[in-house]
């Protein structure tokens, strides 16, 4: 187990090192000069040069790469070119919107998907199943920005139950914050819930064909009881894998929803930073997301090994 863990750990560190190199290279290659963007069309060459020096852009690329990576190892993500505030603080601020939004959307998604998936599996081939699968097909197909706009038109513009967008901040109260995140969370949750419901249904149907389910029915449990006591637990494994994937997607993938609802989240930060060529912010945010995904994968690898002893010896 120790050897396996060590191997996974080395692979984790290597992945991160390669990722940092790729991220830096790709983002630095993109045409566009942050100093020119800041100073605009009337900037004089000496002013541009002064700003480049101030931002540290006149150093060579390898030096800047090493400075960036070295800083991150010490927990210093650098200073934003445009905002001139520490990137770590900016990311933390944005996480206070993006993380709750992700969790909120995930909770809605699970609350919708579990009952829908179980219901469809239990009514396999009947009208209820067909209706449920049709609905989820629609949920997957509808673009979420369009759905978001419809939500805004109905609930913000016409009914006036919600604001059309924006985030007042958690200091205005938890309820106010959650209220502001409700429409975006629903817009994000719908396609995820549709996917999850379909996975839930097929996982349950797979399990229903297993021997132990037949045994459960044979010892006198009803179809519903067998599903509830034995089927659900075993069907959860693929469902949890999907939920894990959805977390990282929701965390960074909410760019469009954050634009539609003008929320100050991580996605909008990336969007703004790319536009203004605030390279250090883009690099650090992307690196952070890569770090999260790779670390989660590492933990999942370890968890698999704990569950399945064969993995430990095979490697």
């Amino acid at each position, binding site marked *: 187990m120790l050897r396996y863990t060590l191997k996974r750990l080395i692979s984790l560190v290597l992945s991160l090192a390669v990722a940092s190199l790729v991220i830096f290279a790709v983002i630095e290659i993109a*045409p566009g000069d942050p100093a020119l963007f800041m100073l605009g069309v*009337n900037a004089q060459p000496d002013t541009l040069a002064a700003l480049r020096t101030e931002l540290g852009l006149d150093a060579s690329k390898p030096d800047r790469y090493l400075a960036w990576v070295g800083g991150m190892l010490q927990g210093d993500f650098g200073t934003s070119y445009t905002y001139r505030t520490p990137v770590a603080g900016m990311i933390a601020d944005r996480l206070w919107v993006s993380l709750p939004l992700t969790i909120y959307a995930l909770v809605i998604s699970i609350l919708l998907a579990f009952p829908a998936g179980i219901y469809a599996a239990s009514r396999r081939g009947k009208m209820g199943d067909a209706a449920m699968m049709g609905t989820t097909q629609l949920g997957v197909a509808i673009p979420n920005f369009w759905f978001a706009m419809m939500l805004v038109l109905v609930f913000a*513009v016409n009914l006036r139950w919600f604001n059309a967008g924006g985030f007042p901040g958690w200091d205005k109260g938890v309820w106010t914050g959650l209220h502001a995140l409700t429409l975006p969370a629903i817009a994000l949750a719908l396609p995820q819930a549709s996917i999850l419901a379909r996975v839930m249904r097929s996982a349950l149907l797979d399990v229903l064909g297993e021997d132990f389910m037949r045994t459960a029915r044979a010892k006198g449990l009803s179809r519903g009881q067998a599903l509830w006591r034995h089927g659900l637990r075993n069907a959860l494994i693929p469902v949890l894998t999907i939920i894990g994937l959805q977390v990282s997607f929701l965390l960074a993938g909410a760019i469009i929803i954050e634009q539609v609802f*003008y929320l100050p989240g991580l996605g909008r930060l990336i969007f703004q930073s790319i536009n203004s060529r605030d390279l250090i912010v883009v690099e650090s945010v992307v690196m952070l997301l890569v770090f999260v995904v790779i670390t989660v994968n590492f933990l999942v690898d370890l968890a698999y090994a704990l569950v399945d002893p064969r993995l430990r010896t095979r490697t």
Partner: protein
Amino acid sequence: MGIFDSRSVKLAGALVAGLWWSTAHAQSDITIALQLEPPHLDPTSAAAQAIDSVLYTNVFEGLTRFMGDGSIVPGLAESWEISDDGKTYTFKLREGVSFHDGAPMSAEDVKFSLDRARAEDSANAQKALFDGIAEVTVLDPLTVQVTLANPNGSLLFNLAWGDAVIVSEASIADIKTNPVGTGAYKFAEWVQGDRIELTRNDAYWGDAPALESATFKFISDPTAAFAAVMAEDVDVFDNFPAPENLPQFEADPRFQVLVGSNEGETILSTNNKQPPFDDIRVRQAIAHAIDRQAIIDGAMFGYGTPIGSHFAPHHPAYVDLTGNSAFDPEKSKALLAEAGMADGFETTLHLPPPSYARRGGEIVAAQLAEVGITAEIINVEWAQWLESVFKGKNFGLTIVSHTEPMDIGIYARPDYYFQYDNPEFQTLMETLNTTTDPAERDALLKQAQQIIAEDYVNGFLFQWAKLSVAKAGVQGLWADAPTAAIDLTSISWSE
């Protein structure tokens, strides 16, 4: 019979209700939406207009200032004297002005601000505004003298820009996140990505403004902008990004639509050094191939004024030269044939993100195709546009709105991206810079418009209209935009 009959009871009830209504609704705050968020809060070290929109005249003030009609009036300088040779300006500062941190504003701060802007390591995006200044001298705490190398007729205009506001040395280190000025509003809070809040400065030297506080919100998506106004989440949307929605707001009694002029000459910029555009006949052919009204109708939904040169129609020295480049495809084809391009040619058309460029570009490309010119559309982001078009001069045609006020001087810079190099025009601009008599200046400006129109330097399309939407009760908004600004001191609620 009681003392009060039912009618007077009703009347009294209505009066009380009316009184309650007016007190309950005497709104003293306002929420203003902008499309772009300021990158930081220092108007003296960035080109972003959003910084000025939030801070100009509200938080920071200069020696002189723009009014909504474009006139220049005294700001922190109460008055000034100009020496007979036009080289020395002696500014008398207002008494009793203090910065938001309590420190008094004095001639030392003026010297510090101007010297900082024109210093060698200055990060001022409009450093050229201060080019002619040779020395800034403090005569006494309320008198400051600005000495010029040569007379400069634009100095008072230049000092009114947001890039020339007076800052204090004590707070300069943190100006980007915590701006400290002399204005009627103090900076309160910035939630990055969401909003900036300003509150009234009770120690302000001038008249106390009506609003107690203002919140600026940043909504970049045009659809989200529409929803935010319709849901009444915002009271004002400055420079509303979707002109196609304006008729709907106009028809709705809850809103007012403000259509004003601004300083944005929208042009089909042409690379004058790149063949075949180095041939004036080709440039003239392009000018005659373009139907301006079709572009204004199609891209701007009718908002915009045709222009025939690089000059704002609301300026007193404006000359209407649109006839010089009237829509005439036959003439255009004849000119191309004369230039040896009877079969047309291929070029590129770089389009930055704003809808005037993307939508306008499609129409321009279609119009050019009618006379045989194939313009390949290349959509670019602003950062790319600056890098490859503006700096790299790697383009044939591009559409862009030049929003700086009075910027005809860019045609005197041969290294400017459209690379127009005409010594006659350059001499004219030098004469203009040293001319202080307003009538003479106007005559020179008219001549300048004429020269670039007749040289067909660029395709002159239209003067961009400033479009804003506000709730019906908002008064005192600037309709025109002589500079990027949302002057809170003039705004109030009508209820």
